[in-house]
C-alpha cells in the first residue's frame, strides 16, 4: 500500500479521519473532540458520528456528551420523518400495481440497516420501470409532489438523457423525491448493466409494496454513486455507507466479498468496486480480503481520496479545491458522450453570463 502512505503524508492531522481510521480516541483532549465534531458537522456526519459513539459507549466530557445527545434526538426525528414520508409515497403509488424500488438512504432506513444509523439526507430516491414512469409521475402529482419550474434546456437534460426525472417537491411538506428509471445515466461512458440489477431486485421483507436491490447490488450502487460523482460535500458519508453496508453483509455471509466482486464484473462495475473499497479500507479500515484488492489505485481514485477527506477549513488538504475542479470535469466526461458534452458545456457557459437568481437568505 505505497500510495496509501504517500496519501497520508500529504494530509493535515484530522481527529475525524484518525478516529474513522481506527486510530482510537484516547489521546483526544476536549479541544480535539470539539474540532472532530466541527469536522463531522462540515461533512454532514454529526448524527452518524453520534450514533457510532453512543454504540461504542465512548465516555465524553459533559459539553460534548450534550452535543451527542442533541444529534441523536435529531437523527431519531429524521428517521421518523422518513418512514412517514415513505407511507405517503406508498399511498400515492399503491394503485399503480408496479414494483417500486427504494434506493440509498431511504432503503437503509426502511431495512433498518447499520448504514441508516444517524444518516441525514435530503431526498428519497425511488425507481420504477421506464414504461411506467409517466404513470408514476402522474400519481405522485396527484399526491402533491410537483417538479418545480425548469428552463426548457434542463427539462430536456432530465427527460432525454438522464436516469431520473427532475426532482419532485411536495407542495405542503416540502420533502423532495427523486423518481428514477435507471441507476446510472444511460449516456454514461462506463457501460453499466443497471437493468440487470433492477430486474433482480427483491421485495422488502414484511412489505407488500417496497422492493430493494439485492445485497451485492446495494453496495455496488453506493460505490458507483461515489465514484461517478462530482459532488464530494457528502463524499465521506457515502464512503462510510459503503463500509457499513459491506461489513453488515459480510458478517451475515462469509462468501459475500467474493460474490460482490463477481457480481461487479457481471454488471460492468469490477473496476469501480475495487477502487471504492480501496478507499474504504484506507480511510475506514474496511476488512476486505487482500487478494481482491491487489494492484495500485488509479489516478482518479487518488484524487477522490483527497476529495472525500475532511473538508473542514482547519484540516482539509491544501489542494482540495483543485481536486474538486478536476473531478467535476471527470464527472461531466463520464456522464455524457462527446457530442452531448459539447452541447451541455456550451449551454452552461452561455447561461453563466446571464444574471443569477438570489439564493436563500436568513
Amino acid at each position, binding site marked *: 500500500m505505497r500510495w496509501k502512505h504517500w496519501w497520508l503524508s500529504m494530509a493535515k492531522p484530522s481527529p475525524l479521519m484518525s478516529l474513522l481510521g481506527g486510530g482510537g480516541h484516547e489521546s483526544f483532549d*476536549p*479541544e480535539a473532540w*470539539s474540532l472532530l465534531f466541527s469536522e463531522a458537522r462540515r461533512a454532514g456526519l454529526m448524527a452518524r458520528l453520534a450514533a457510532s459513539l453512543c454504540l461504542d459507549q465512548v465516555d465524553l466530557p459533559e*459539553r460534548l456528551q*450534550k452535543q451527542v445527545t442533541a444529534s441523536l434526538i*435529531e437523527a431519531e*426525528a429524521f428517521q421518523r420523518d422518513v418512514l412517514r414520508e415513505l407511507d405517503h409515497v406508498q399511498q400515492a403509488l399503491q394503485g399503480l400495481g408496479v414494483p417500486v424500488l427504494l434506493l440509498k438512504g431511504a432503503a437503509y432506513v426502511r431495512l433498518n440497516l447499520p448504514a441508516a444509523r444517524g444518516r441525514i439526507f435530503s431526498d428519497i430516491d425511488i425507481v420504477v420501470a421506464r414504461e411506467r414512469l409517466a404513470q408514476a409521475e402522474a400519481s405522485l402529482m396527484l399526491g402533491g409532489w410537483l417538479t418545480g419550474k425548469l428552463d426548457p434546456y434542463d427539462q430536456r437534460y432530465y427527460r432525454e438523457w438522464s436516469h431520473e426525472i427532475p426532482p419532485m417537491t411536495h407542495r405542503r411538506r416540502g420533502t423532495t423525491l427523486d423518481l428514477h428509471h435507471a441507476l446510472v445515466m444511460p449516456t454514461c461512458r462506463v457501460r453499466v448493466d443497471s437493468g440487470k440489477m433492477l430486474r433482480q431486485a427483491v421485495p422488502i421483507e414484511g412489505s407488500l409494496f417496497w422492493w430493494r436491490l439485492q445485497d451485492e447490488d446495494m453496495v455496488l450502487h453506493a460505490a458507483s454513486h461515489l465514484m461517478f460523482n462530482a459532488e464530494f460535500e457528502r463524499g465521506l458519508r457515502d464512503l462510510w455507507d459503503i463500509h457499513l453496508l459491506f461489513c453488515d453483509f459480510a458478517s451475515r455471509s462469509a462468501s459475500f466479498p467474493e460474490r460482490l466482486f463477481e457480481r461487479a464484473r457481471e454488471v460492468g462495475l469490477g473496476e469501480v468496486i475495487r477502487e471504492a473499497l480501496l478507499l474504504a479500507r484506507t480511510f475506514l479500515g474496511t476488512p476486505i480480503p487482500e487478494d481482491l484488492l491487489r494492484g495500485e489505485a488509479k489516478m482518479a481514485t487518488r484524487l477522490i481520496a483527497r476529495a472525500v477527506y475532511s473538508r*473542514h477549513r482547519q484540516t482539509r488538504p491544501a489542494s482540495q479545491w483543485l481536486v474538486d475542479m478536476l473531478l467535476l470535469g471527470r464527472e461531466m466526461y463520464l456522464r455524457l458522450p462527446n457530442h452531448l458534452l459539447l452541447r451541455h458545456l456550451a449551454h452552461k457557459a452561455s447561461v453563466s453570463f446571464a444574471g443569477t437568481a438570489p439564493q436563500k437568505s436568513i
Partner: protein
Amino acid sequence: MLTLSSCTSEQLHRALRDGSFRLYLGQLALKVSSDIPEFIAAFRQLYGDHPVALGGGEYDFDIAISAPALWRRWFRRNASFEFSGDTPFLPMEVGHAHALFEWGLNWAIASFLHHCLILHSAVLEWRGKGVLLSAVSGSGKSTLSAELSEQGWRLLSDELALLDSDLKLIPLARPVSLKNTSIDVIRRRHPTAVIGPLALDTHKGTVAHLKVSADAVGSNLVPAIPKLIVFPKWVEGAPLRVEPVGAGQAALRLIDQAFNYSTLGTEGFRRLVALVRMTEAWQIEYSSLDEARDALETLVAEHG
C-alpha cells in the same frame, strides 16, 4: 474569569485570527474567529462583560465572521457567517457583520441544541420568577424585553427560550436585537444604554443591538424556573388589557412558536404540557411601555 473588555485590542485580534478565542455564553462555549474590523469593534462593545478565553479549549459551535473571498477584503467588502466552515447563508455587506453574527447564532442554537425544547420567546426573570414573553415577530417583544432589562429585570434571552429536561430555563444573556423605531425608543428612554452600530437596510430594516447588563451576564449559569407565560402585543394607542389564557390554548400558541417541537417527538409534548401546567398564562395588549411593565410586575407578584 477574563472578560472581553479586559483583553487588549492586540490580544483580541490575535486570538480571533489564530483560532484560540472562546466566548462563554452561559452553558455554551463558542469558538469565534474573525478578521473583519467592523465586526470586532461591535463585538468588543456589545460583549464586553462576557467571559472569554484566549488560549483555546473545548467549544460547542465553531463560528467565523470572515470575507467570502480574498478580494472581498478590500473591494465591495462583504462578511459571511461560517459555521464549522460551512456558509449556510448569503454574505452580507460588512456593516451588517455583527447582525449577521447574532442571526447566525440564533440559527445555530435553534438547529442544534435539541436537548432543549426551543421556543421563539423572550425570557426574563423578576424577583426570582421566570417569565416567558412569547409573540410573533413584530409584536414588540424585543422592545419590551429591552425596556424590562433596563429597568432591573434579569434578561435570559430576547429571542429563544431553552427549556431543558428538568423544565428549567437556560440563560443565554447576549445583546438584544432592536429594530427600526424601537432603537430610538430605547435610546430616548435610557440615554446611558449602550447600543451598537446601526445595520441599515437589512431584510428586517434597520437593526441595532443593545448591550445587556453585567448582572444579567454574570447570572448566565443560573437557570430560571418558569412561573408565567405572557403573550404581549403592542398596539398603537390601545388601552392596557390584561386577560388570562387557558393552559391548552397557551400550549397550542407555544407549539406554533416552537423551533424543534416535532424534532423532540413525544418528549416535546411532555415538556410543553409540564410547562403550561406549572405556569399561568396571560395575554396583554398595550401601547405604553410603563403600563406594560407595571402590569407584568403585578402579574408576577400575584400569579407567578
